[in-house]
């Protein structure tokens, strides 16, 4: 379809010196089983285009699902009128000369095609059945999401980019209850690729495994409340990095665009190059090159070519997360992360893949180094202030560590801290054997609101003296 759009784009006319078209075509299929019943399968076919125009420093967009030449021309005309209406009133003077005219392609590395729906349903049924250990298991839910996306970007200056993405997302959740205690364990494996991800996620057998863990949790004591060392496993590091490194470094937040909704940042432009964000063990990158990560791509949605960039090197803050426009506004370097969730939303700064680079500690060495501490995995609760500083996060699973040994399971493990000081307490970073790739499909931000996917890969990490606490008695 993008070839036809390309032809129609070339027939468009505008008085604007610069205009562009961004085309999205997405097919989604959701297959799920709850308890022992197949949920109704749902398919989605979403296709449309956003036309943008720049006139005398003004900028406008118009999104339409009418992809005929006439429909696209009407949208371009509307975008041009918006650009004319906002010239002289824009927070930044949009310049055609700053707009990329990229050419290139990208395609997800997908090795395996999905089997039939029946085969997938059988796979889901096996996990739901396997999770039915006893009557305390009150809910079993298994699902697979299959996503195929085609994105194309054309400019009147000769730019033409085509990118195709595939995501295969298995999910399993088992909930146990006894009296007023309810606990859940889940598997949430979010990567880019084909059906080979099902095997890589260890989905087979997850039903019984998660059920056993949920039953352990309802019988476990509450997490104690005290200062102790905190060992975060990669599936919780994902959330920690996302909320207290990724968002604070987004340039549009620093520039104030998000102050009415998602919030601002404790990071200010003068901090880049001088601010100690974390201990010397901390190295954080924007990395769109790991092919299996959710937000790997060759170009962002404004056509900027994507490459790996260090954001924090040896604990020092060196670069923000901002696309071409934000870089120009802030006078700072940045990253290719101007992204839109769909054809009907404009690109804004989004974090894409933000990773903690592996260190040198094995998991055993990290556990052995802890006299009194706790291991936490799998996020269940997240809350952080609008400057991305004061946070409180909770996990599904906690294990006390006493005198260098993992001793017992605890429920409702939570911790709270302040981003500006928490990362400085990082005292061990796991090696490549502890490194895992995770991500989320559901990062919300922007006005109009957008939910987008982000990837986060990290090793297990130890933080000294964290403020840890448990649930209500």
């Amino acid at each position: 379809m993008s070839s036809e759009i390309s032809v129609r784009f070339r027939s468009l006319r505008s008085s604007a010196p610069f205009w562009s078209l961004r085309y999205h075509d997405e097919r989604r299929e959701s297959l799920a089983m709850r308890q022992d019943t197949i949920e109704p399968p749902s398919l989605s076919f979403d296709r449309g285009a956003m036309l943008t125009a720049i006139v005398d420093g003004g900028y406008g967009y118009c999104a339409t699902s009418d992809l005929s030449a006439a429909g696209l021309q009407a949208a371009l005309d509307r975008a041009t009128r918006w650009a004319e209406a906002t010239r002289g009133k824009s927070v930044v003077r949009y310049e055609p000369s700053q707009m990329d005219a990229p050419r290139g392609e990208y395609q997800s590395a997908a090795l395996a095609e999905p089997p039939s729906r029946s085969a997938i349903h059988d796979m889901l049924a096996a996990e739901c059945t396997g999770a039915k250990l006893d009557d305390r298991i009150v809910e079993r839910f298994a699902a697979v999401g299959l996503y195929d996306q085609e994105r194309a970007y054309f400019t009147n200056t000769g730019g033409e980019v085509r990118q195709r993405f595939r995501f295969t997302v298995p999910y399993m959740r088992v909930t146990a209850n006894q009296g007023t205690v309810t606990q859940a364990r889940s598997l949430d494996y979010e990567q880019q690729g084909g059906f080979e991800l099902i095997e890589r996620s260890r989905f087979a057998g997850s039903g019984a495994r998660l059920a056993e863990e949920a039953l352990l949790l309802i019988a476990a004591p509450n997490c104690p409340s005290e200062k102790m060392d905190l060992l975060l496993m990669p599936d919780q590091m994902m959330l920690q990095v996302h909320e207290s490194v990724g968002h604070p470094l987004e340039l549009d937040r620093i520039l104030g665009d998000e102050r009415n909704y998602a919030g601002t940042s404790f990071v200010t432009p003068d901090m880049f190059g001088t601010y100690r964000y974390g201990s010397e063990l901390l190295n954080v990158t924007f990395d769109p090159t790991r092919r299996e990560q959710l937000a790997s791509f060759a170009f962002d949605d404004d056509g900027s070519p994507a490459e790996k960039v260090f954001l924090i090197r040896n604990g020092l803050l060196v670069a923000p997360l901002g696309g071409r426009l934000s870089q120009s506004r802030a006078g700072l370097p940045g990253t290719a992360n101007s992204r839109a969730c769909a054809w009907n939303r404009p690109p804004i700064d989004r974090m894409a893949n933000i990773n903690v680079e592996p260190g040198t500690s094995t998991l055993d060495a990290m556990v052995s180094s802890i006299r009194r501490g706790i291991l936490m995995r799998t996020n269940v609760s997240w809350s952080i202030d609008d400057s991305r500083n004061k946070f409180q996060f909770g996990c599904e699973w906690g294990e006390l560590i006493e005198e260098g040994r993992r001793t017992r399971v605890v429920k409702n493990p939570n911790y709270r801290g302040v981003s500006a000081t928490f990362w400085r307490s990082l005292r061990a970073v796991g090696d490549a054997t502890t490194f895992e790739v995770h991500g989320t499909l559901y990062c919300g931000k922007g006005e109009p609101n957008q939910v987008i996917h982000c990837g986060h890969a990290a090793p297990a990490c130890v933080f000294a003296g964290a403020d840890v606490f448990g649930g209500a008695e």
Partner: protein
Amino acid sequence: MKGQFFSLAARLDQDLASSETLLCNVSAERSDFIRFNKALVRQAGSVSQCYLTLRLLSNRRQASATLALAASDDDLAHAREALASLRTTLRELPEDPWLLINENPQSGDAERRGKLAPSAQVVEEAIGTAHGRDLVGFYAGGTIYRGFANSLGQRNWHEIDTFNFDWSFYRQGDQAVKTGYAGFDWDAAALAGKMAQAGERLELLALPRRTIEPGEYRAYLAPAALNDIVGLLGWGGFSARARQTKQSPLLRMQEGATLSPRITFTENIAEGIAPAFQGEGFMKPPRVVLIDRGELGEPLVSPRSAKEYGLATNGAGGGEAADSLDVAAGTLGEEEVLSALDTGLYISNLWYLNFSDRAAGRITGMTRFATFWVERGRIVAPVTPMRFDESIYRLLGDALVGLTRERELVPDPSTYGERQTSSARLPGALVSRLRFTL
């Protein structure tokens, strides 16, 4: 739009085999979006979108497909392709024991025309009325459409012209006053009045800022702040499925715990702005009492939960969340709030709430925007953002001193995927203690 949708549904009905039933839902909008920062335009544009969801039923099996329509002659062909795809899918499925649709057609029509301002006028008036203040916010306006049709002959339509201008004035750093202006008829004078009020409150933020130590404080939660708490409870709190599977944050109420007798929550479709029909064609009752004077009331029961648990559906959507939540008013006059608070925190807004312990009803979140320290009934200082961590059984239980007589209608400004039609109407709440931890 209405004619096109019903005509398309009728054409698709003609393609059905005798064993098939088709449900069609449409969700569409024509919107202007204007984003402001520093009293200038950051991004402005228009979105025209129309999503058709087809749910095909045959021999107790069902599957659905959603497609973006182009408002062109191609739509029928695309819908027929989707229908063919659904027929293939149904052949691979077993019977669905939890399938339930409305088989007694109840057609209806609700349209509300508004007087929306041309977008260029919104830009001019928003920037002009800010009078040089640091305005940041978002205007969304235009027509929202929701429709339902099934092959049993039911036809429902909901069409409203609305706008929602959700904005803040910033003083410096994270110090701001947040408010909003939403409705059906744009009125420049009303906007100017709201901006003037916000401007007065902004002046209070110039007072020397105070940092409050963690601990327990008497507090007043303005309606917008209470809305965040009630909204969090709505994440499974009123759902029949969550109740049956013991995942409700109100689980302890299922076991006998109660809130203050001052607390009554109602799903009040009759007085909200959301459609009265849902995806399976069921009509929603005018009112469902969710919490009745502190005791657990009826849950919201989707058709699927109704079949699974042997309950009667009350027309809830699949998410079993309230669309038009109404919190009963109290007796505290708005003008008495500061004197009744005496000494403590006046909290205009909360932010980023979540559960510290869901099953126990323990919640956490941050203060945001204008929060003030009050002494002897007088605002004396803005305070820095603070984190609270509190049980709802204290907050809305024995710590609840009173609710205001006046209530605010808070339309949901969110635009995830589409502009929302949900809203809440609620009072402010005075509590004797709220626990702050960070």
